[in-house]
């Protein structure tokens, strides 16, 4: 039994690497998109604010699985053909972007109005106020929940196995299909996911403490 699993280890490692790669892509892309849309939500003109609001409330209101299927099966139906890998990354990025938008909105909203006013009073322009006063403070409040939420990307990525992408989840299922060693392999998989996510949540706790001084 152990021999069979040991034999499958390189295959599992590849799946694990793909899980990390998908998660990393999703985290980076959603960070960029989420910050852009988040700023749009807070400071943009009304139509943009509404568009982002609707996007975010919709995406956060449905299961990730539905979003993944919608993107994966729906896009070819309307003539957009993406490799399943990129369809999966796109779907997870949409999901994660909606989260980032909310973290950003929350972080900016938590900064007292007086900060912006004090910055205005010394003559900073809108962009300067954001750059030197609002964002540096918002960043410290954004970081802990964001890092905490990175685990959602890792956990969510397990759903892409349903699109036939050989991530860790799919690799485990395939090895089980050959070896029939279901329990040891699921436990191994659980431990791997747990290891990554637990490390991330420890990191977020550390960061929270590090930036604690900001609580006026």
């Amino acid at each position: 039994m152990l021999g069979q699993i040991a034999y499958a280890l390189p295959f599992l490692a590849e799946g694990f690497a793909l899980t990390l790669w998908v998660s990393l892509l999703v985290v980076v892309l959603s960070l960029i998109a989420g910050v852009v849309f988040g700023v749009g939500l807070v400071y943009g003109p009304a139509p943009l604010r509404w568009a982002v609001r609707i996007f975010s409330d919709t995406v956060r209101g449905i299961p990730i699985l539905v979003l993944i299927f919608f993107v994966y099966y729906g896009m070819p139906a309307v003539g957009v053909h993406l490799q399943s890998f990129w369809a999966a990354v796109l779907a997870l990025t949409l999901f994660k972007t909606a989260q980032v938008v909310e973290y950003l909105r929350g972080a900016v909203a938590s900064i007292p109005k007086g900060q912006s006013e004090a910055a205005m009073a010394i003559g900073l322009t809108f962009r300067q106020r954001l750059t030197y006063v609002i964002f540096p403070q918002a960043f410290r409040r954004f970081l802990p929940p964001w890092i905490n939420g990175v685990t959602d990307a890792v956990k969510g990525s397990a759903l892409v196995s349903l699109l036939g992408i050989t991530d860790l989840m799919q690799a485990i299922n395939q090895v089980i299909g050959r070896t029939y060693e279901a329990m040891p392999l699921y436990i191994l998989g659980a431990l791997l996911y747990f290891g990554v996510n637990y490390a991330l949540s420890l990191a977020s706790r550390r960061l929270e403490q590090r930036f604690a001084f900001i609580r006026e």
Partner: protein
Amino acid sequence: MGYTLNFNLIWRHFDKLWGGLLLSLELAVISIAIGIVIGLVLAVWYVSAGRVVRGIIASYVEFIRNVPLILLVYLVFYGLPTVIDLAYSAQTSFVATLAVYSGAYLVEVFRSGLEAVPRGQIDAGKAIGLTPWQRLVHVRLPTMMRITLPALSNTFISLFKDTSVASVISVPELTYGAQWINFNTFRIVEVYLVVTAMYLVTGYALLFALRLVERWYRTAR
């Protein structure tokens, strides 16, 4: 793009979606009910327990929260029966999994609520001669409920959405119904639009109802 929406086939198979939605709700309600019991018991135990028990409860919470639900669903449905001599349906298997899963999230919600109950309230309970059990039932739990209700509502909604994972072991809930129509009619965009609307309406209706409960709870006492 030239894609024309045609909902006719969706309506013809709408019973798949409607039945699916009802099953999703049923799965959520049963799992969450069990999860609440697990969560409450473990949270109350946690705040008064020693290091060892705390460590065990914390391990359960941390483990579950850091592993994808889909893996737990597979583990319980395909994995467990290979090591224990027990047969159960996919639906039972999923309910058990989601109950244990929601329990972990709810322990955390209840625990932080219990720890946020002001010291003075507990002391006041002591001062008027309440027993520990009376303090728990009449002082700590009601106060904790008020503190945790908003977080609780959000957890419920998110657990409701998690029922979609039951589709991976062919439990015919809403997402499964969507896939069935997807594969059998190819009205793909339509079915996911309808299902998205169904999840949104149900989710926000639940949220609205829970907010009403919160409001009632705040004013009723």
